[in-house]
């Protein structure tokens, strides 16, 4: 039992402060959608409006074909997993999971069956008689999900459920969530400000910024074709390097830009006629750079800091004029801080952003 969610012209105001401004979004039945955006952009507010925990100033929310924004939270058929899990501290795992079902007077055998099934799926059968105080962070997290599962909701809502976990556990749980979604096939809405989570989990990502939806798309669309400089800088770790453009030349199959202090970069991007080069920048991801031997063509980068991630190495450096650029090298890189290395850029992967932050991508599909 799962259903689509339609958000129509939703606006949210606190007194005179607008927190969400005319949001429209359709989430397909069975889709995993992630709301991604910086802190305070209204992600939680939107999610909580779907759940019924926050009032709606204007607009309509539908689940399936039914308008739900007039219903109390319990009757909307959604389940939510909170950042803090919000487990009932004085109830055992089993009681926590059964509470919602008891409230609507589900038969005891049915409750037992559902709780046991969910516990098996989440591998928490042996924890059913413990109270939350005696569970580890990851276990609590799973109980919170279990509590959602047993309700067989039309949609799952997650509000940063992983942010209280430590790094290793976060990675593992992310994987488990993805598997769970595959197994249940339910509609899931997930809020985070961690772009790695968004990228790895989402069918589609909704990027929110300044009370609006900035971009909706699959992780790859968002990563590869950010609609704006904001999205480009927000998604991806390390963030995309932005180099100021001095001059733009139209050439066949794209433009060649002169980058401040770095010489010319040939791209496959076609720009509109009226494009204004002033304050425009070219964006380059670290993985689209390559350290080459000093003889080859490229930019000279003086390395300030090195981050070794094992499988790859990030080089944080400055070009001759002081512009900052992050380059990537292999995990076995021998570069040291203070070195100057020559870096070549895969120009077909570059992006150009105008003064308003609007993005222009390479036409070439890669």
């Amino acid at each position, binding site marked *: 039992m799962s259903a689509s969610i339609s958000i129509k012209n939703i606006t949210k105001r606190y007194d005179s402060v607008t927190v969400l401004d005319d949001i429209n979004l359709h989430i397909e039945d069975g889709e995993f959608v992630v709301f991604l955006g910086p802190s305070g952009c209204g992600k939680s507010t939107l999610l909580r409006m779907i759940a019924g925990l926050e009032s709606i100033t204007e607009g309509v929310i539908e689940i399936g074909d039914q308008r739900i924004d007039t219903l109390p*939270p319990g009757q909307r058929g959604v389940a939510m997993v909170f950042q803090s899990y919000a487990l009932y501290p004085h109830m055992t795992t089993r009681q926590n999971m059964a509470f*919602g079902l008891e409230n609507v007077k589900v038969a005891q055998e049915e409750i037992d069956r559902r709780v046991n099934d969910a516990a098996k799926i989440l591998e928490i059968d042996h924890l059913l008689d413990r109270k939350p105080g005696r569970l580890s962070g990851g276990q609590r997290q799973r109980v919170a999900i279990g509590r959602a599962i047993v309700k067989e909701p039309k949609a799952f809502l997650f509000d940063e459920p992983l942010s209280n976990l430590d790094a290793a556990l976060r990675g593992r749980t992310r994987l488990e969530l993805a598997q769970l979604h595959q197994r249940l096939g339910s509609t899931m809405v997930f809020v985070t400000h961690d772009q790695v989570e968004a990228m790895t989990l989402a069918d589609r990502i909704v990027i929110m910024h300044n009370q609006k939806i900035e971009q909706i798309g699959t992780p790859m669309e968002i990563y590869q074709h950010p609609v704006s400089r904001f999205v480009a800088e927000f998604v991806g770790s390390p963030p995309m390097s932005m180099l100021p453009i001095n001059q733009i030349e139209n050439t066949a199959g794209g433009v060649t830009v002169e980058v401040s202090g770095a010489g010319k970069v040939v791209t496959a991007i076609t720009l509109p006629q009226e494009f204004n080069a002033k304050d425009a920048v070219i964006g380059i991801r670290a993985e689209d750079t390559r350290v080459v031997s000093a003889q080859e063509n490229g930019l000279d980068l003086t390395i300030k800091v090195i981050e070794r991630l094992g499988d790859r190495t990030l080089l944080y450096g400055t070009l001759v004029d002081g512009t900052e650029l992050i380059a990537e090298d292999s995990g076995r890189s021998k570069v040291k801080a203070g070195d100057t290395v020559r870096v070549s850029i895969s120009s077909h992967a570059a992006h150009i952003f105008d003064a308003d932050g609007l993005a222009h991508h390479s036409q070439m599909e890669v």
Partner: protein
Amino acid sequence: MAESYRRSRWTNGLFVVPYLSVFVTLLVFPLAWGIWLSLNKVDLFGGERFIGLKNYARVLSDPVFGQAVKNTVIFVGVSVPTLVVLGLFLALALNKTTKGSSFLRGLFFASSILSVTIVTLIWRIVFIPSDGLIALIFEFFGWQPIGFLSTKGWALFSVGVATVWWCIGLPMMLFLAALQQIPKDLYEAAALDNASRWRVLTRITLPSIKSTIMLVAVIQVVMQFQLFGQAQLMTNGGPAGSSRPIVMYIYEVGFLRWDIGMGAAASQVLFLIILCAAMLQYWISTRKEEVDA
């Protein structure tokens, strides 16, 4: 053996020396002395004569003491639950940030700041027949007047009313504090879990403030067992001793009859009763925890 800041050092104990010296000289020592006095035949002006446990025998066989114990236990048994339930109710009703609630919170707490002489003065003037506020109300409705302070049964009840009126502020405040510490998202989870108001109260709110309920109950039991001023000043223990609490018995024996030894013995009995009641409560609460865990 290496140094650590956590190491036990007798110099650290210096911090408790000021309090402990006051504690020992002004509480432990007088208490011990009181126990010594309880073993003696002695009046206000000395003349000690060791008589062993005779004072205790006299106290325990005194039907007046028995009645006082009964009165006190009834009083504690009724007033403490009332204070807890009413305090809880008020805290629940006023757990909001609106102006109206904070005004009412202030109002309910305000009575706690009055002294017992004032409180009983107020309530005597409310309860007295013919001129009292209640008498006026009864008269207005044409009801048969009740001698609240002079009728068996009503007397202790009236003392209880004044006591609850006087003491309700603290439980309410403690409960409010506890309520505010319940994470908001528990309620949101419960809302999504379709829980009715009643189930939210019984399954979320009350369990969450269980330890505060316990704390309030223990504090109140200890305090209410020491009931004195209200009874002394409102009913003088009457009629027929039906509102005489243990402390008043101690006062009468010690100060009116000058029988310090017997008064001291009764005091020690009271001390024991309070200690047992508090420990019993503590024991019940912790034992249940263990079963749960």
